[in-house]
């Protein structure tokens, strides 16, 4: 546990000092998204990597958080700090209720059901034009404000988003190492065995699904308040798949893996711009290669790679 804490502190220092390298600029904006995507990947990883339950509809919860926050503040003039928790609670309750019937399903069937859920939410964003503005989006969402500081620049937003992201990371690490984290991994491995040791597998699955939705909703609200404009296109099926890719590429069942996956998938398209029209081919190719050669994800694959390089150079080195 002490090692976990040191790791977290080192990571926090890294995150807080990173902006000094860039001094503003476009990349800061991208790094804000890395933060938001990290939260989302962690949310999905708790469900998929720890509890072993797939969801192809998490973009929907992300979108619900964004739209609830957006509509409450832009249309009804709420304070964003009030809108965010309200959105999170509403989304959490919804996920809890939906979770009971849906999480009875397993494997492919669960994937189908959550896929359907995501699509329904997406359609609602598009069709309830009076409320959401439909396909053309919702604008005029206010920035967050705290103690006279308005979070309206990339640098300010960076610290805001990453402050919250670090809190989510700390929470997720604590959860993963607790008695509940053990129970989640038990449900993942064998539901029957988890039941006979006294884990209420059905309830636990629903609870982690709801928690995952709450974190996603929070990320959605933050997204809405930093962007100030949202449209349904950001919350479609494609994004659900992208989240899934982040979790798998980063490493299932690893909180820092979620960060690595989110960082890679958010930054890579920016760097691949140079390749112009070929970017999507290189992007896809890289993902295939990574899944083939790092089945444990970046978080396990990269240290392995270093170890191999070190060994071949050092000759007799036994790490």
């Amino acid at each position, binding site marked *: 546990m002490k090692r976990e804490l040191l790791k977290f502190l080192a990571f926090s220092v890294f995150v807080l000092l990173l902006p000094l390298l860039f001094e503003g600029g476009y990349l800061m904006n991208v790094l804000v998204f890395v933060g938001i995507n990290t939260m989302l990947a962690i949310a999905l990883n708790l469900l998929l990597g720890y509890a072993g339950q797939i969801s192809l509809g998490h973009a929907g919860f992300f979108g619900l958080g964004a739209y609830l926050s957006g509509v409450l503040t832009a249309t009804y003039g709420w304070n964003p700090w009030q809108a965010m928790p309200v959105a999170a609670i509403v989304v959490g309750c919804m996920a809890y209720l939906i979770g009971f019937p849906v999480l009875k399903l397993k494997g492919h069937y669960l994937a189908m059901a959550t896929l359907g859920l995501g699509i329904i939410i997406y359609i609602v964003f598009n069709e309830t034009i009076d409320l959401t503005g439909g396909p053309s989006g919702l604008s005029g969402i206010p920035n967050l404000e705290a103690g006279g500081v308005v979070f309206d620049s990339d640098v300010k937003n960076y610290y805001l988003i990453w402050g919250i992201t670090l809190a989510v990371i700390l929470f997720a690490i604590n959860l993963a190492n607790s008695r509940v984290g*053990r129970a989640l*991994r038990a449900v*993942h*491995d064998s539901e029957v065995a988890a039941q006979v040791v*006294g884990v209420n597998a059905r309830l636990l699955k629903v609870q982690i699904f709801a928690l995952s939705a709450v974190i996603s909703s929070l990320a959605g609200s933050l997204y809405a308040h930093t962007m100030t404009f949202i449209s349904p296109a950001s919350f479609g099926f494609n994004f659900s798949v992208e989240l899934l890719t982040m979790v798998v590429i980063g490493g299932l069942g690893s909180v820092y893996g979620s960060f690595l996956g989110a960082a890679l998938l958010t930054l890579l398209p920016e760097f691949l711009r140079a390749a112009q029209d070929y970017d999507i081919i290189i992007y896809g190719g890289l993902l295939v290669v990574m899944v083939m050669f790092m089945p444990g994800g970046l978080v396990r694959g990269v240290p392995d790679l270093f170890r191999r390089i070190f060994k071949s150079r050092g000759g007799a080195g036994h790490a």
Partner: protein
Amino acid sequence: MLRLKNINTYYGKVHALKNVSLHLGEGEIVTLIGANGAGKTTILNSISGVTPASNGEILFRKEPVMALQPDRVVKLGISQVPEGRQVFKPLSVEDNLQLGAYLRYRGREGKAAIQKDMEQVFALFPRLEERRKQLAGTMSGGEQQMLAIGRALMANPKLLLLDEPSMGLAPLVVQEIFRVLQRLRQENGTTILLVEQNAKAALKLADRGYVLETGKVILEGAADELLENAEVKRAYLGKDKKEMWER
């Protein structure tokens, strides 16, 4: 201590248990023997709530256990060692044992009591202590069986339901495990309901036994009587088979 009255359990339309009645006294070791598909596992699963019975009555210390969620059953003091061990393979031995005490972490006894019970499990199975950090999936079948029993003991059960602990294990390991079961009864007064294919070994350990066939109890009695019973001998112990044939 435990009493089943006219239990019926179905898997979909398949009638797996037909009016099964049985009872266990405090501190008794009772075995269920029978061929594959006789309903032995189903009886255990019906008690633990994993496959709830559809009608009948199950009483544990005069309290109804019928149709309770599995976690409630564990809380009452009934732990099951499931068929095929089902240890949590990607978790360490220690994590597996801690999961056995899952419901007790919320209770009043505190972590010290749980730690003490873990030491007790290690005293019963010293090999688990040597491997406490090892992943359960990387251990041998015998060690996994020991872990599965240890995990069930971590819930501090009054009644232990064991589903074929000897499956696929070397005779020496089976002996070791059966010795531990005996010790458990002597030292902790744990009541044990044992399902076994290895009828001979089970009847030698048990006080009483029930013989099942296609979902029904066809014979019950003291273990030593069952060992001598001609029908049991022929069908489950493999003795005197020739004589029966020649008749």
